[in-house]
């Protein structure tokens, strides 16, 4: 039966008593906290089978834990989901666009505040700004915390290249989609950034807390001033975490994973150099006596090549060989003997040679004249007078010698 007068204690008691169910429903519903009808019923049934204290769907409605949508799905109440995110320390990352919307609300209220003269409305605008700033800080802190925690978990060792690829993708995604946009939302230099607006509000509230007339408004502007001073310092810390810790950490994870991923592909293709997408670094190999450039080397080799010993090509030229006629010693000896010797041996030598050739050099002459040394021939010098024999290469002055065969 519906209980119309639920107290906070009833809600807290429900959360304590059915903590496991609430957690299951929370996890099933993330990130939009909408659960399909069948799934929701299964969760309730499973919980009731294993637990003594039972729950019913109608009881959940009574507690405003959820409501059924027209599509049949169940939607967890936003107040619960926000509280449960806090309890389970499990936040859904909001896109920086969501944060921008909150910033725009602060900015809009600040514009209205500056032109408002009604004291009650001024109080309301201040309260709205304080609430929005608090929510904004809360969101930013949750985002940063969540990003830091996820980044830490991203550092865990990758078992294979698929894990490495996911690491690279996630790191790149967070950098591009969260860190950089968050930085721009928080950028002090940008006139439209939240920081710039908060600084403006701080100046305005600082002046107003002294200039306004009523005590009530003074207190309101004091409250606003304290709120934005605090916001300023908290955002400074958050920016520090984002830019000095988270961004370098993510960049590091990204580049480390790229190194491991690159090496992974290298090892995989180690035996197929043709598959190397990137060629290996071309380190120089130590070469002894490397004193010339390749270009010079090629020219030098070409030059030196000319001096390399090669098997000579033998070319036979057919030429008419003049066979020099040489006197046949034995023929002339026979001739000499047949003439019973000679009274003037050297003249005889010249004369007989002339019968065979016109060219009588010293060599030919001596071939015949050497007969004088034959043992069976005798030479007699008749007198001292000499006569000339003109050979083709020399003129001889020879004595008159008688040569004849020694009779037996």
């Amino acid at each position, binding site marked *: 039966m519906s209980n119309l007068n639920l107290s906070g204690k009833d809600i807290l008691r429900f959360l304590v008593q059915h903590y496991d169910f609430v957690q299951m429903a929370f996890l099933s519903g993330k990130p939009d906290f909408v659960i399909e009808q069948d799934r929701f019923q299964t969760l309730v049934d499973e919980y009731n089978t294993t637990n003594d204290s039972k729950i019913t769907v109608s009881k959940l409605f009574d507690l405003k834990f959820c409501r059924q949508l027209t599509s049949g799905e169940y939607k967890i109440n936003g107040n619960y989901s926000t509280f449960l995110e806090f309890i389970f320390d499990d936040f859904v990352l909001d896109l920086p666009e969501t944060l921008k919307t909150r910033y725009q609300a602060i900015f809009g209220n600040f514009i209205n505040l500056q032109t408002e003269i009604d004291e009650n409305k001024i109080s309301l605008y201040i309260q709205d700004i304080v609430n929005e700033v608090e929510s904004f800080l809360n969101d930013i802190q949750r985002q940063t915390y969540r990003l830091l925690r996820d980044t830490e978990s991203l550092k865990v*060792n*990758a078992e294979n290249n698929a894990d490495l*690829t996911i690491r*690279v993708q996630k790191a790149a995604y967070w950098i591009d989609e969260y860190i950089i946009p968050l930085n721009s939302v928080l950028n002090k230099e940008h006139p439209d950034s939240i920081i710039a607006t908060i600084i403006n509000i701080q100046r305005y509230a600082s002046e107003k807390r002294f200039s306004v007339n009523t005590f009530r408004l003074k207190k309101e502007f004091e409250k606003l001033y304290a709120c934005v001073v605090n916001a300023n310092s908290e955002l400074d810390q958050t920016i520090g975490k984002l830019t000095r810790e988270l961004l370098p950490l993510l960049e*590091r994870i990204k*580049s*480390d*994973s*790229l*190194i*491991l*991923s*690159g*090496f*992974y*592909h*290298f*090892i995989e293709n*180690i035996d197929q*150099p043709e598959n*190397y*997408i*990137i060629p*290996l*670094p*071309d*380190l*120089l*190999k*130590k*070469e002894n006596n*490397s004193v*010339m*450039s*390749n*270009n010079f080397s090629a020219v030098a080799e070409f030059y030196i090549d000319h001096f390399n010993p090669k098997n000579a090509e033998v070319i036979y030229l057919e030429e008419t060989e003049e066979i020099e006629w040489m006197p046949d010693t034995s023929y002339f000896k026979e001739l000499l003997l047949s003439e019973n010797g000679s009274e003037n041996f050297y003249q005889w030598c010249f004369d007989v040679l002339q019968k065979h050739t016109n060219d009588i050099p010293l060599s030919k002459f001596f071939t015949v004249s050497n007969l004088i040394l034959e043992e069976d021939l005798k030479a007699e010098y008749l007198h001292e007078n000499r006569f000339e024999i003109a050979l083709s290469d020399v003129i001889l002055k020879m004595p008159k010698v008688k040569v004849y065969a020694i009779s037996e």
Partner: protein
Amino acid sequence: MQYPNEHKKIVSNLLDGKFIISSHLFNVIKEQEDDYIEFFKKSYGFDLKVEADFAYLSSDDVKETRTRDFVLFLAVLCRELDYSGKNFRDTVELGSLDISETFELLKQSSKWEILEKTTVADFEKFITTWTGKNLLMKTGSQFKFTKAVIVFLSFAVNIANAKIKEEN
């Protein structure tokens, strides 16, 4: 080009395939970076690479074939350090490693079957070889990577980026 007093040492070190790491010699190269790039290109046909902290020669023709082994060694080492929960990049870029412990770590790897067919198998000699090229620094039983290891880490990043580009 005005030849500095250290010219002969610079040329011989670089021609020996050594990295010249942040030092007086490196500063001399850095001061005459353009001159030296032209000198090595015209004299030898080699490319002088001058990075932020080190310089080395590169050539398409006279390649150090053992480079592949070094990259493989570094790849497996990074992988194993990452698996064992260490921050591999800090260890590689800043830390010292025990030679025998590192060898054991590599041998336990499922990729050891690849490494054992390379020059890494004779690990002491491997460390000595690359110490000679100033890519490693050996002190007693320890060794560490010099700043030149960036060349190989960048190589890996380039592969990964090319792969991502290929997949998209």
